[in-house]
């Protein structure tokens, strides 16, 4: 922290000449680079390296090779074979099943979470007393570790568990089959719709009350007020929340893994498929799955940002102009 001294003050207090200012800007840039480097180092190591190594790995296959008459295990470049093999035969079935499950979970859970989340937010917004208490209780599902909530719901969905008792049914929720999908979605929605609710509530609280008064004077019904005022105004906050949920649900792993189990056809997601391939030491195939999942997530994120106009770092852009003014003032 002690390295930049005199030149640093020069940026804050504008020097008399343009030369001094140029110098200050350059050293400020160096300073910025210095401060940013640890983060980039960590991200390069933990995110950059694995992704690149993964893509490279996905082009190789483990093979038994004959070296000097001895059979040794080696890795052989196979090009896109790992990828093309994913779509064919038995492995193709597993892939399309996992792909379908991932997409199905994401679509249903995110839609339900958003609807329930907005409802929770509207209820909490109305409340005059006890709001703090309700807000705290809304945070509880978020605080329960996902793996623990998987266990909790597994327990609730036992054949003689409380879900069946309440429903007077004998459904084998955790066996495999459509019920297991339902169980995963219920658990997922329980855990995350409060999160969306909180973000939507924060959006609601920014809407000035007089907008509603004006609407009431004009004779707008409650539903019209909701559709024409509330929804458009909380859309930016909601869009960011939904984007995060989308990214998170697409890579879902612990919840179905703990709630239903590994290698269950009805709930196997792409993450779980990649994980079980890696567990069988088929790294090439595993990383091919992971890479495909990554591409899929990137596509969905891009499409969503384009469609919903989610302005994830929008504030940074606004701030840039005012920030500059502030620095030069």
């Amino acid at each position: 922290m002690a390295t930049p001294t005199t030149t640093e003050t020069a940026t804050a207090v504008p020097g008399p000449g343009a030369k001094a200012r140029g110098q200050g800007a350059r050293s400020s840039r160096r300073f910025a680079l210095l401060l940013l480097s640890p983060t980039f180092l960590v991200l390069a190591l933990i995110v950059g390296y694995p992704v690149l190594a993964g893509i490279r790995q996905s082009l190789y296959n483990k093979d038994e090779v004959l070296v000097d008459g001895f059979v040794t295990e080696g890795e052989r470049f196979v090009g896109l074979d790992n990828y093309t093999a994913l779509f064919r035969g038995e492995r193709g079935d597993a892939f399309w099943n996992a792909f379908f499950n991932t997409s199905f979970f994401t679509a249903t859970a995110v839609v339900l979470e958003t609807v329930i989340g907005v409802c929770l937010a509207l209820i909490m917004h109305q409340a005059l007393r006890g709001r703090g208490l309700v807000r705290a209780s809304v945070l509880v599902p978020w605080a329960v570790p996902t793996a623990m909530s998987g266990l909790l719901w597994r327990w609730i969905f036992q054949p003689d568990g409380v879900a069946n008792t309440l429903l007077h049914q004998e459904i084998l929720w955790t066996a495999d089959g459509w019920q297991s999908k339902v169980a995963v979605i219920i658990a997922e929605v329980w855990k995350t719709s409060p999160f969306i609710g909180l973000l939507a509530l924060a959006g609601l609280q920014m809407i000035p009350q007089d907008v509603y008064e004006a609407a009431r004077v004009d004779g707008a019904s409650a539903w019209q007020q909701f559709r024409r005022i509330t929804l458009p105004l909380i859309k930016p906050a909601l869009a960011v929340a939904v984007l995060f949920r989308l990214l998170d649900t697409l890579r879902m792993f612990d919840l179905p893994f703990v709630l239903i189990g590994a290698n269950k056809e009805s709930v196997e997601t792409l993450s779980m498929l990649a994980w079980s391939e890696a567990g069988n030491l088929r790294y090439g195939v595993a990383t091919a799955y992971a890479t495909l999942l990554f591409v899929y997530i990137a596509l969905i994120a891009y499409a969503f940002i384009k469609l919903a106009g989610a302005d994830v770092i929008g504030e940074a852009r606004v701030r840039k102009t005012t920030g500059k003014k502030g620095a030069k003032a």
Partner: protein
Amino acid sequence: MKRVLNYAGLAFVAVFCLAPFYWMVVSAFRRPQDQFDSSPWPAPWSTENLRAVFDPDNMFGRALANSLLVAGVTTALTLLVAVFTAYTLARLDFRFKNAVLGVIVATSMFPGISQVVPLLKLFIDIDWINTYQAMIVPSLGFALPLAVWNLTVFFRQLPFELEQAAMTDGCTRGEAFRKIIIPLAAPGVFTTAILVFFMAWNEFIIAFSMVNEKSMQTATVAIAKFTGMRGFDQPFGTQMAAAVVVTVPLVIVVLVFQRRIVVGLTAGGVK
């Protein structure tokens, strides 16, 4: 009438969020032989499950200590790195600033599995399997984007003038940072610390993949792997009791710091 509806709504929200959690607590305090009771209240109460959790065979105390160590170190390291980056992004002016923030936020988009598989291979090669660093270092990478983003938002809200005034009075930027910014940003740093700690404490896939020795497992993994007396029995009573042990401290933290956590969670999303 409206009042009644309001309270009914609030009650609905509370039940929706708390009922499953309540079931976990109730199940934890039943006697093992009453396990499949579905009465809403354990009769009689029993701490037998709780005692089973801390049975030396489960090594659960050790698992809790592991979790505490991994999450604690991850939080400390993440904050150390993120504070400088966030300060730079919020306070210094340079080109590509938004691109940098964009890239950092985008790294949180990568699916964990695309990191786990190559890292697993790497850690096998460098003999890191069953070590703490094999859990801490990847968690650091996962938590960093969140922390940087959150702290950037907090740093931006601080008034620029104080820092400039300090520098006019002869403080270097470093001193101004230490004496003015850090104390002002302390609440934001604390909030971010809670969020990162939660994230690291809840981590599952890395701890599950990188560690296979019982003495190195974190609590979430240990609980998921608890085995019952008989082969295929899942010891739900014990698991629920253990889940209570892991979750209740978090819930208490949530209740105490509710306002801060909400601020932290909504900081990036709503502005």
